[in-house]
């Protein structure tokens, strides 16, 4: 899915850097006053890593009585340090339906010289997005002269706004560099309505500068700075922004606005689910079973296996899916196409399903900010009343009381019933006509993502370790290996194991590796490999030191720096190790690490080392129960990572009998 106002990193950059100047001004070759005035702005003492600052971002949205809108944006930016030169590249995006009326740029060199960019200096590029084979997204780009520290870059752009019926304007005023002055004006036809919703910023009242012409102004917006911030959420989830909705008809707010948006999308997309006979026949073939789970598993498996991800998005095609019949016929489509075909096929076997419009940056969509913005489409499958199944865990309950199983048909290696970690806890729009609403996608419990690693090794007196490892993986822990053993060859599979073991051994060989159930989504992946590690036991004096953990890491880099941003733990799950090391016959255990048992609420970690005869047994369990933590939990995270790190690096001491 490609929303009108994309917020992929690329799209954000484009919006961030869009530019132009009125033809009249150019014709007169007059250097615009608004640039000179902005250039005189008084700057705050910014952090030393600030490369550039937005002196002015002034946006005017003008809506004609027929609903057609244009957006004029002026931006002035000052380069503060050499690294800020990257912000001097101006990128003004446009598309078939969002044409540019004009695009020009200016600059002021550090020496005060004023430059006006000539049209022939402007490039025109296809932008392209990951996974999109063809789209109509393009940009005018240019780097004006004088882009050195102290220099000013400015531009003005006017483009047509394609709302496709969902009239809203996103004001994304917080970026990775600070801003001095941000202005948004919305000029509406008489009697039109508007309302603004805010996220991560206190609401600011608009002033009516002319009849139904509204103006918001913000000053001194700090940057989102994630430099050296471990476990950081997506910057798109952290940045403050405002969405102003406008309409010729009365505008509902809050949940009702979410419903309107969902209803609008339903109207746009529902006709695309019409299924010709071939789809119905195939659906019955795949999902003809009586049992609900078996029915949906068959069709879900077909979507995951047989429909390639290929994005072709032109104009409204960024929002509206291709007809299910085409997707079925050609066996390819993007996320919304795959969701649409899934809906059509499920409908054909009597299962109701619909779209959920989401974003892959958890936290970007927020209930407080009704909007069509998002970058992904998945499906919600209505479950029969009273139905439950222990394997169908990604279930939400709508306010209608209906239960929906959330499923991402684009995610090839997460079985239906579960949900990829990147979507868990996110919000999205459940598209259900007048029952549309914003929903939170489920956060799966720790036992939905598991790794059970067992290993049995024998240690020789020369320090060589030899043995076999078995890893039983389910949920997210299995996904990577399902992909590896479905898509890659033996060489790549072997190398993947070798690269992982490189973190734990200086010298080793992997004798064999094998994965069971990689293609059987309903079963855990069982990965087995044998290895020999030379010099694993380190002789020191009469002692032999070994690391009881042997292999596998849970610790993540963290630091004790003051924390202002939330903490993203990535995924919930349970990861266990049970490792046996048979010791050389003439050695006994002299000293061992102390057991560890730490529970910080959102996660727990415990480990233990025991000597049973001549076998050293190490066991541990790491459980993560939450995804996102408040910054106040930083000390706990630091403590947790410190404990895991210490345990993972601890040694047991063997001595000769």
């Amino acid at each position, binding site marked *: 899915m490609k929303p009108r106002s994309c917020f992929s990193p690329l799209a954000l950059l484009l919006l961030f850097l869009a530019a132009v100047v009125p033809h009249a001004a150019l014709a007169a070759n007059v250097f615009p006053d608004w640039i000179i005035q902005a250039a005189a702005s008084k700057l705050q003492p910014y952090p*030393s*890593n600030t490369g550039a600052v937005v002196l002015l971002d002034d946006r005017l949205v003008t809506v004609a009585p027929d609903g057609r809108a244009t957006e004029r944006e002026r931006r002035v930016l000052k380069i503060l340090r*050499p*690294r800020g*030169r990257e912000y001097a590249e101006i990128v003004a995006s446009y598309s078939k339906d969002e044409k540019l009326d004009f695009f020009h740029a200016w600059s002021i060199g550090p020496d005060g010289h004023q*430059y006006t960019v*000539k049209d022939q200096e402007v*490039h*025109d*590029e*296809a932008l392209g997005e990951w996974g999109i*084979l*063809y789209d109509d997204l393009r940009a005018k780009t240019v780097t004006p*002269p*004088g*882009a*050195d520290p102290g220099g000013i870059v400015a531009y003005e752009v006017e483009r047509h706004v394609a709302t496709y019926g969902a009239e809203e304007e996103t004001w994304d005023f917080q970026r990775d560099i600070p801003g001095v002055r941000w202005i948004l004006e919305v000029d509406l036809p008489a009697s039109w309505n508007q309302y603004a919703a805010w996220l991560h910023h206190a609401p600011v009242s608009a002033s009516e500068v002319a009849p139904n012409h509204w103006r918001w102004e913000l000053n001194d917006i700090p940057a989102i700075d994630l430099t*050296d911030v471990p476990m950081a959420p997506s910057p798109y989830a952290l940045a403050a922004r405002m969405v102003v909705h406008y309409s010729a008809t009365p505008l509902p707010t809050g949940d009702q606005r979410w419903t309107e948006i969902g209803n609008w999308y339903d109207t746009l997309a529902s006709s695309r689910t019409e299924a010709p006979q071939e789809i119905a026949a195939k659906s019955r073939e795949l999902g003809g079973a009586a049992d609900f789970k078996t029915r949906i598993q068959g069709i879900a498996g077909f979507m995951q296996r047989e429909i*390639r991800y*290929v994005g*072709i998005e032109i104009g409204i095609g960024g929002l509206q899916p291709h007809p299910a019949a085409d997707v079925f016929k*050609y066996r*390819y489509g993007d996320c919304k196409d795959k969701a649409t075909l899934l809906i059509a096929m499920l409908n054909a076997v009597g299962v109701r399903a619909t779209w959920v419009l989401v974003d892959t940056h958890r936290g970007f969509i927020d209930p407080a900010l009704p909007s069509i913005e998002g970058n992904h489409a998945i499906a919600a499958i209505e479950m029969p009343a009273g139905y439950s199944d222990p394997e169908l865990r990604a279930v939400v309950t709508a306010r209608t009381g209906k239960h929906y199983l959330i499923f991402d048909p684009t995610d*090839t290696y997460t079985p239906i019933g579960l949900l990829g970690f990147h979507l868990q806890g996110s919000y999205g729009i459940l598209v259900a006509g007048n029952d549309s609403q914003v929903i939170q996608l489920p956060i799966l419990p720790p036992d939905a993502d598991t790794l059970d690693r067992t290993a049995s090794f024998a240690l020789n007196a020369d320090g060589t370790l030899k043995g076999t490892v078995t890893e039983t993986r389910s949920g997210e822990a299995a996904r990577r290996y399902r992909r590896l053993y479905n*898509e*890659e*060859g*033996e*060489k*790549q*599979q072997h*190398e993947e194991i*070798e*690269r992982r*073991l*490189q973190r734990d051994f*200086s*010298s080793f*060989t*992997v004798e064999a590796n094998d994965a069971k159930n990689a293609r059987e989504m309903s079963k855990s992946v069982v990965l087995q490999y044998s290895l020999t590690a*030379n*010099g694993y036991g*380190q002789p*020191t*004096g009469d002692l032999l030191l070994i690391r009881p953990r042997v292999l596998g890491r849970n610790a993540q880099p963290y*630091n*004790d720096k003051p924390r202002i941003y939330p903490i993203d733990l990535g995924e919930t799950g349970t990861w266990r190790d049970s490792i046996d090391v048979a010791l050389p016959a003439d050695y006994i255990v*002299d000293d*061992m690490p*102390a057991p560890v048992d*730490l529970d910080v609420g959102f996660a727990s970690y415990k480990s233990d080392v025991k000597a049973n005869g001549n076998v050293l047994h190490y066991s541990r369990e790491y459980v993560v129960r939450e995804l996102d933590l408040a910054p106040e939990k930083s000390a706990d995270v630091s*403590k947790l*990572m*410190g404990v*895991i790190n*210490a*345990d993972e*690096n*601890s*040694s047991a001491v063997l001595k000769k009998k």
Partner: protein
Amino acid sequence: MPIALRRFLPTVITTIMALTSAHALADAWIKPTPEELQMTEEPAAPGAAAIYLLRDERADDKLHVHITYVRLKVLTEKGKDYADQEISYQGGQYKIFGVEGRTIHSDGTVIPFTGKPYQKVLEKSGKEKYKATVFTLPDVQVGSILEYRYVLSYESNVVVSPRWYLQGPLYVRKAHFQFIPSDRVLEDGHGGVMQGRVAHSAYLPTGSSIVYSPAGKYYTLDVEKIPASPDEEFMPPMHNYSFRALFYYTIARTTDEYWGSEGKYWSKNVDKFIDAGKLSAIESQIVTPADSPAQKLQKIYAAVMKLENTSFTREHTGAEDKAQGIKVKTAADIWEQKRGNRDELTRLFVGLARAAGFKAYVGVVTNRDRNLFLADYLDWSQLDDDIAIVQVDGKDQFFDPGERYAEYGELHWKHTATQGIRQTDKGAVIFETPIPGYQSTSQLRNAYLEIQPDGKVRGTISFGLTGNKALRWREFALRNDEDALKVEFEQMVQRDMPPGIQVKMDHFLGLTDWDKTLLGVLNVTGSMGTTTAKRVFLPATFFEATSHPLFALDKRTMPIDLDYPLAMKDMVSIKLPPAFDIESLPKDTEFAYPQNAYYQAKFTREPGVVKSLRIFAMGNVIYKAEEYPALKDFYQKVNAKDKEPAVLGFTQASSVAGGAATGNAQ
């Protein structure tokens, strides 16, 4: 894709061809064999995502078309990606047409491509336009055979000699190439003419060769069983190691003739830019008559190093130069405006050296970080950066004044152990740059650490860097600034620290003093080591305690390129609190990979202090694949030794066992 453009002389009458489809020029679709339909794996390429059953490329410079026909077998899920095709080409004089395709399922079912390819303008700048034809094949499954073909046509006043790279990401069962060269009179780029003379540079599998048909006046090449390109870490640039056949039109009859001739034009332009006559007055501002030749050269080098190098800051536009009244025609203009790009500054240095009486020359080399020079591929575009060659005491000495902050008499590693073209008194010739000794790049790390009675660690660590190690960070600071450098450097150091240790960048010394050691100093806090009931284990080598062996994989097919030789020395001193006794230290070790690398680790105990010395030197950077096991073994032994801990015992266990070490989990 088109690589060489020559315009016909205006007097040439051109033929206009009307082509409506690739089908008109290519064979009909090939019927798949039962074996092709049913195959699930290619024994010669186990695990391959897909393979080419056939690549058929026909370049016809008489008809001004290149026709491509591909048959591809999908073997895994990943192989389905090859159904998506984006064929890029230069717009204007070129176009793609006649796209046809089909998918054949393993049961023989044929699904024709009935869609319309999308035409995408990738980039448009002035009159330049780069385009792509985009399409995807329908109903692709694992086991499908994908077939497509298209025609690249170009205007009748253009010829395009083909470049056939036989090796790519996929195994090729069979490939057929044909080239029908133009027989017209062509311009040679310098106002000369040539009568369709064709040459090629080829590296082909054993047993295959390019065959010329005198009757048909065309070349063909048939190959089969071509393995996919290897993809291994630390590989040299791959273009030089893959099978290929590169054609070009040329007036030259021999390699020497080509490089001599093209080099002559290049050298003339270089000397015109240097315009040494204008530099005498500048040279006299820099040196004094009393200076020795060595002093003069050093002063000139230092003077050029002070100028802004726009290759590391920002190239200025014509509008800026115009606004500032600057016209860059000669090296003297570079001196006047106090800025220039890497090649301009190199030429300025050479010009000033000449003005000071030195025999000085410019050389242009292929940068080793992206490619290697191929003498028999007569294409000037394989050459990248200028370097300077000055005769000092009768010997050629190499300089890199275009590489800001390169040390005097040293080259950036990408300009070492490579080839290019240089000026000599007798014209332009192919030459080779030397590879420096391991002393040319050094890293000295010192750590002075103290474990406090409460278990916390405090101290400082310092990095002394020279050669390529220093150059990397100095150039980073040029492109960014010192604050950004501090953040980046601190993050680099932090990644290698033992668990529990936090570093904070304090300062740099010598950041812009290219002739001095770059010194970085960081403060250390936190805790380190792990505990058991009776002991504490400290990372004895400290800096390398968490490193991984450089090579993990068992098998190797390609040579190894480690960029540049270097010498590293670490000195670590850890002061212990009274609560600890030193129970044991790792054994002193010394070993070598003869003729190539050396390692030494020494550990000493003094009252309350653990000290370690680690020396690592790598003298050779290019290794054959056969040498990989020995090289890997050397690195693994180094890594194993680096990870041995110092073992401490508690003298007063009850008082310190709780806090001496990292995350002493309670």
